[in-house]
């Protein structure tokens, strides 16, 4: 079984693939009428705490990057909140990752599916307030989608800054509570103390869209796609070679299979960045897109980014550019990240330039060790993951650069 999903050739208005029955089944830029025509109206009154058991049965995990199980998050919120405190649910549509555009695409074409999921999640935890947090490009669509609905509680639309870190869960809560989209050190979990001290659930918008379908069709239906360990489908932002595309792929899908479906020849695609700037470079052969521990040869999909290294581009130079970006994207709150990422970036630049002997590679490994795990959010850890994967996957290039050449180019200027 395959799902064609949609394809966005460079922009969200591009040609559509074969209609899928899943997230984009209502077609391009679906309003409430077309949404209800395609999916049927969701009877929210029927949704209560028992929806958490449906989510448990479905095995749905977060599609924003961490792949945490959705039902466990809800149980934690129901457990951790005080007797009086009403929970808050936030739909997180902030998509600061430069190579990700699946959430913007989803919000443009299927805003009502996301709102259905948000309302269903709200009912499952008895939420008193619902928010949808998204970048400038999605706000107009979301405001008119919210205006078309008369549900209670009302949904508040909150603008997210276009920074890399703005979508990190504690930054989302900080932004909504205090207007500062920077990560916080969590002495208490968000499930017990989040937005204005209330127990808070932050779900990626795609996760909520899946919830909207599980609420309609049930857990067994969701599991018809994907594998036992990684059920359902996920959206992928595919870039780096030809037109950009959003694809809906099944859990555990093989990387070469996804590339063929995208119209590329997997045999010529040697290096793919999976998961985005916080992800890892891999050789696609024999690898599957699946969260850790769910498949042999699994590569963590992270936020669903697949970026193919274009032929003729050097992976080390591409990575050096990404690490420069990551260093600049530090929130500059935590010392090891504020000082460590620029040091990593310098060493990575030196490796990419080449011809300096083994010094920069050793320095890169040493500084990575100083940065890894030493921050309030996972920005340093994600950056280290990217660098380590580049040194492993492009090891031939590292050796060539040390000798003053490059495997991608016949000759290099010194």
């Amino acid at each position, binding site marked *: 079984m395959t799902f064609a999903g949609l394809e966005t050739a460079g922009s969200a208005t591009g040609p559509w693939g074969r209609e899928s029955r899943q997230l984009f089944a209502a077609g391009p830029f679906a309003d409430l009428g077309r949404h209800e025509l395609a999916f049927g109206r969701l009877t929210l009154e029927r949704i209560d705490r028992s929806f958490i058991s449906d989510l448990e049965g479905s095995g749905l995990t977060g599609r924003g990057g961490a792949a945490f199980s959705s039902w466990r998050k809800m149980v934690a919120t129901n457990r951790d909140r005080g007797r009086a405190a009403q929970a808050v649910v936030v739909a997180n549509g902030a998509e600061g990752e430069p190579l990700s555009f699946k959430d913007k695409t989803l919000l443009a074409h299927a805003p009502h599916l996301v709102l259905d999921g948000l309302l269903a999640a709200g009912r499952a935890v008895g939420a008193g307030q619902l928010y949808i947090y998204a970048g400038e490009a999605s706000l107009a669509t979301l405001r008119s989608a919210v205006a078309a609905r008369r549900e209670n509680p009302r949904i508040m639309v909150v603008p997210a800054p276009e920074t890399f870190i703005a979508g990190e869960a504690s930054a989302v809560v900080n932004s909504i509570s205090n207007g500062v989209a920077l*990560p*916080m*050190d969590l*002495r208490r979990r968000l499930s017990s103390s989040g937005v204005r001290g209330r127990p808070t659930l932050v779900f990626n918008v795609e996760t909520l869209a899946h919830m909207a379908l599980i609420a309609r069709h049930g857990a067994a239906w969701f599991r018809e796609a994907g594998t036992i360990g990684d059920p359902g489908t996920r959206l992928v932002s595919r870039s780096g070679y030809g037109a950009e595309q959003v694809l809906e792929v099944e859990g555990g899908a093989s990387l070469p299979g996804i590339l063929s479906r995208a119209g590329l020849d997997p045999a010529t695609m040697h290096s793919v960045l999976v998961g985005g700037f916080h992800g890892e470079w891999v050789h696609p052969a024999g690898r599957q897109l699946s969260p850790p521990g769910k498949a042999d040869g699994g590569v963590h999909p992270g936020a669903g980014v697949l970026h193919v290294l274009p032929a003729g581009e050097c992976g080390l130079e591409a990575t050096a550019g990404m690490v420069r970006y990551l260093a600049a994207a530090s929130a500059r*709150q*935590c*010392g*090891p*990240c504020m*000082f*460590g990422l620029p*040091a990593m970036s310098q060493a990575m630049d030196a490796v990419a330039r080449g011809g300096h002997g083994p010094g920069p590679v050793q320095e890169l490994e040493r*500084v990575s*060790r*100083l940065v*890894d*795990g*030493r*921050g*309030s959010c996972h920005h340093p*850890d994600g950056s280290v993951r990217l660098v380590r994967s580049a040194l492993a996957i492009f090891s031939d290039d590292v050796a060539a650069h040390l000798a003053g050449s490059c495997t991608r180019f016949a000759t290099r200027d010194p």
Partner: protein
Amino acid sequence: MSTELHIDWTRCDGRGLCTELLPHLLARDDWGYPLARRDRGGGLSDVEIGVNDLAAARDAVALCPTFALLLRPSP
């Protein structure tokens, strides 16, 4: 139940007091920030505090000029 010393990296300024009180557990990195001498898995950040170090760890929490430290049960 064992205890860990949590470093709030958003507050830590690398003044180094904790590294002087717990020199066998914490070193300083290139920029002066506390660096766990042992990796518990997941990086050189928070450290496990044994009973013999509990008094010194409590001092570190109380004396940290940026209130960046917290003693809490290990996860």
